[in-house]
């Protein structure tokens, strides 16, 4: 049975295609620029497909300004942040959803409201705290604060997810003599894979994008991340566009690949299997 009739399908496809084009346009444009030679970037009319594509830009930036190092640092920092953030958020999300513990409402309210304080407002005291803990020039200097600052996002997503699980599940587990830690790890956690993946990719992207904090907390060039490294190419005196485009593509590629590899987890319907019936 076709869910959508021909007319509806055509209309919907037209809308989606337009949306996809809009979503892709800047990305494709960057991609195209990254293959352009030095004189083609400002060609009038603009070239959509480079007339004489070249890999020179990639060769240049890949060997420039420690891009490879930044890249590895970004991977480590983002992966570490995601692991810490999601695991800690899952614990709290579980607690908020499944235990009526005292102070819960206050905790939730405090969390949600501090989340809106713009980062620049807390950056200075945050740096002082991190410095006192010996976190400058250390990977944890990115991981701990970034995981904390984006904590509530994941907590909120996961709390919703845990709260949505049926009570019967808990009852059944209890009858089996299941203690809360086991119930969390073995019964409930496997059922919230999709929200876990959602939080993970969001936090990964945010950490990967962050350019202000890694610059502030890291002193040594060798410890900068790719988003900081990008700035070297983008700032006023050096903005050679074909180079920027190439670094930008390099900086985006891993996140895109990770997303494509993991996307089946975001859209998994394992949850519906558990709740059905």
């Amino acid at each position, binding site marked *: 049975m076709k869910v*959508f009739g021909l007319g509806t399908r055509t209309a919907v496809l037209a809308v989606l295609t337009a949306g996809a084009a809009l*979503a892709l346009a800047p990305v494709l444009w960057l991609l195209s620029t990254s293959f352009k030679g030095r004189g083609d970037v400002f060609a009038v*009319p603009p070239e959509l497909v480079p007339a004489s594509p070249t890999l020179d830009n990639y060769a240049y930036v890949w060997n420039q300004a420690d891009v490879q190092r930044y890249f590895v640092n970004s991977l480590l920092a983002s992966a570490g942040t995601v692991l810490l953030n999601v695991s800690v958020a899952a614990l709290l999300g579980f607690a908020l959803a499944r235990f009526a513990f005292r102070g819960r409402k206050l905790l939730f309210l405090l969390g949600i409201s501090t989340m809106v304080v*713009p980062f620049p407002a807390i950056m200075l005291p945050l740096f002082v705290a991190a410095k006192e803990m010996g976190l400058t020039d250390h990977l944890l200097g990115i991981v701990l604060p970034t995981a*904390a600052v984006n904590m509530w996002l994941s907590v909120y997503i996961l709390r*919703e997810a845990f709260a949505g699980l049926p009570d019967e599940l808990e009852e059944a587990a209890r009858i089996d003599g299941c203690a*809360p830690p086991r119930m969390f790890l073995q019964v409930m956690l496997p059922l919230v894979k999709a929200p876990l993946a959602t939080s993970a990719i969001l936090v990964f992207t945010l950490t990967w994008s962050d*350019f202000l904090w890694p610059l502030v907390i890291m002193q040594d060039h060798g410890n900068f991340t790719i988003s900081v490294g990008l700035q070297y190419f983008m700032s006023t005196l050096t903005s050679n566009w074909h180079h920027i485009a190439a670094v930008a593509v390099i900086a985006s590629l891993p996140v895109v690949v990770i997303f494509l590899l993991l996307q089946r987890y975001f859209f998994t319907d394992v949850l519906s299997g558990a709740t059905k019936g």
Partner: protein
Amino acid sequence: MSGSAVRARRVSPPRPLAKARGLGESGWGWLFAVPAVMLIGGFVLYPVLNTVLFSFTDFNGLTAANFVGLEQYGRLAGDSVFHRTLLNSGLITAVATVLLVCLPLPVAYWIHRGIPFRRFFRAVLYLPVVVPIIVSSVAWKWLLDEGGLVNYVLVTTGLTSGPVSWLSDPALAIWTVTGVIVWRAFGIYLLIYLAGLATMPDDQLEAAAIDGAGHVRTFGSIVVPHLRGSIVLSSVIAFVAAMRMFDEIYVLTGGGPANASKNTAYYIWESAFSYFKFGYSSAMAVVLLALVLGLVLLGLRLAGRSR
């Protein structure tokens, strides 16, 4: 507060499980909460409390601060730029939140119901989320400026008579940055809705189909109610993200022209790190925090009442 979204969908019956294990609900709850509380306490709450303290001082980031009482707040009351940024924050947040909560809903429905090429659309619509913000913002800046590709297309196809000043028209700049946020974040909300739809039993949709309900009715009477939790979640995330938004403005307009696209988050950054007015910027942050806290409480009360 009780009966609000805070307690989500479940709570009431006593939980013998936890009690039986000796620790009690509060004990277990706090045990699970400890790691998060420590992290948030050290890296968010502590700086926020410092910010609150700063707001009563003339701290300049360089030398020891003096206590000045409510002076900074008094100054805020008379700062027209601050008022402008609050208005802009409100406008950006309102429009971005509404668009981000509503637009992905039908798209999620189409994809869930198996429109052709759904995997392709799903991936492509999510793509802007994973491109680093600073990269996509710069790309948009190049595309949108007076000599950029967008204007080239508009003018050569005759859609507009001259280039559109996306970034330098004060009436337009704020909506341009809002548009770029919506462009970037759309995929997040699509993802949330798709995850929500994945928990919807298929038989409901089948039953609706047998009843002869059209897409519009199915969407309105089954899908949207089912996604209520996801919609609340989306609203909260979109609201918070839009309030905090900084990177796009930093890259695209620098808050201009004539403060037309400057939001409070940007003004806080500017006051602190360009003007060395940490006391003042902290007071702004506190006012923003108080306003949002008020809105959240109000929202929770309304959400609680409607349940």
